């Protein structure tokens, strides 16, 4: 019997040691850039306590249906080029808290990895909660037979964030997960009124960490109110705001991932 992941060409995880640095943001924007370059992308959201992905595509009110091979992922639009799975679709009410200990979380993650009928995808992006605990251990274990490409690590520039991301790098090393690169998010803010750049969350920590640990640096993404607004409204930032400050960096990150697949797969 063909596994539900048999048609998925590349699997990559988006990780961070720290909360609130923009993992879900980077996951969604990566999916959008890849979609615009003609790829079919799925996003598996394994943040069970704080599932952000559905709202970022304006499909938070959708439900999940079953088919013969398992759960049908939620398509973002008629195009069917981006599909999603998240606990967000399984909640009765959007404010319902998922107050589960590890074992229950682990069981759902195993199901999410095995039972979603993704069909054929070029990329499956796995968005994770912050940390190095149940969700991460279970996800990596469940994905191991399918040989994921690796992980993108997201940090903000300041040392307090980088301090946690160093630990995430250790997690990757210990679990045999290749690190595709580090993204330094929220890296500088250009005032829309006067164009002055302020490093609100400091600058350079992510790049330094990449250099220090010999891991590829994928780029700096600046704070961009239009990006935040797009995420709020579930709009396609890549389509609608190509001139906005975060656009070039996001496209560059996706390009490096796309270009890297041939070398990493072999």
């Amino acid at each position, binding site marked *: 019997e063909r596994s539900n992941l048999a048609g998925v060409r590349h699997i990559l995880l988006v990780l961070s*040691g*720290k*909360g*609130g640095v923009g993992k*879900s943001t980077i996951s969604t924007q990566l999916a959008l850039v890849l979609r615009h370059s003609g790829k079919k992308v799925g996003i598996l959201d394994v943040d069970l*306590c*704080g599932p*952000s992905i559905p*709202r*970022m595509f304006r499909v938070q009110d959708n439900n999940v249906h079953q088919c013969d091979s398992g759960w049908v992922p939620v398509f973002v639009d008629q195009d069917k080029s981006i599909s999603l799975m998240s606990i967000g679709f399984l909640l009765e009410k*959007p*404010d*319902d*808290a*998922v*107050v*589960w*200990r*590890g*074992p229950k*979380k*682990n069981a759902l993650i195993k199901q999410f990895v095995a039972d979603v009928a993704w069909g054929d995808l070029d990329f499956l992006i796995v968005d994770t*909660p*912050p*940390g*190095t*605990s*149940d969700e*991460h*251990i279970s996800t990596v274990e469940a994905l191991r037979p399918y040989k994921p490409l690796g992980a993108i690590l997201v940090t903000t520039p*300041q*040392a*307090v964030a980088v*301090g*946690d991301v*160093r*630990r*995430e*790098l*250790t*997690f990757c090393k*210990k*679990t045999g997960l290749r690190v595709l690169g580090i993204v330094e998010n929220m890296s500088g*803010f250009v*005032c*829309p*009124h*006067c164009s*002055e750049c*302020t*490093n*609100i*969350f*400091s600058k350079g920590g992510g790049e330094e960490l990449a250099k220090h640990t010999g891991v590829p640096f994928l780029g700096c993404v600046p*704070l961009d*109110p239009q990006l*935040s*607004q797009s*995420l*709020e409204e579930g709009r396609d930032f890549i389509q609608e705001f190509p001139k906005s400050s975060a656009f070039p960096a996001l496209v560059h990150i996706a390009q490096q991932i796309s270009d890297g697949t041939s070398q990493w797969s072999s």
Partner: protein
Amino acid sequence: QVALLDIDICGPSIPKMMGLEGEQVHQSGSGWSPVYVEENLGVMSVGFLLSSPDDAVIWRGPKKNGLIKQFLRDVDWGEIDYLIVDTPPGTSDEHLSIVQYLSAAHIDGAVIITTPQEVSLQDVRKEINFCHKVKLPVIGVVENMSGFVCPKCKNESQIFPPTTGGAEKMCQNLNVSLLGKVPLDPQIGKSCDKGQSFLSEAPDSPATLSYRNIIQRIQEYCDQHHFQKEKII
């Protein structure tokens, strides 16, 4: 006399922020000694138990719960006025355990932090529901990263836009207090990275004023609460 307990086992940030990186925990006859920032401020974190900044704590729930229990049972805090517990994001093992283990000691309540945008609020509503579920009183909500004033032109930008009314609207809807809003200030991150007190380094920052007001409101809540409790007794 204040105790700060960091139960973010996977991402312990408190040691660095308090300028205590590299410190170790000492054992004595009466248990584990907290690491002191000042005579009246003691700190405990898994960060002090790790030998390298690269060490990852790759533990499933039960092991994390075990350490949290130890922190509460074995740390010799002495007599303290306030025990502040910093938690990781989520509504899982750490949160259930700390509420369970502290139930006999009586928790005054929870302060909940959010940023203004709906992507954050949607998770915070869940956190508030968690508090209701486990009968943890909500002291109030703090809206962090609430606006940024450009140091050059002084115009304000909503970097994390409150598209659904921010914490203010959410608090109204859920009938919880909004304790205050803290604006973005690059000095905050800098001070935390250096392990210095932002309140001391930038006493005139609008963020400092916000923090102080919020802290005052928390103290007032706790004082009122105690007074009521004593009345009952």
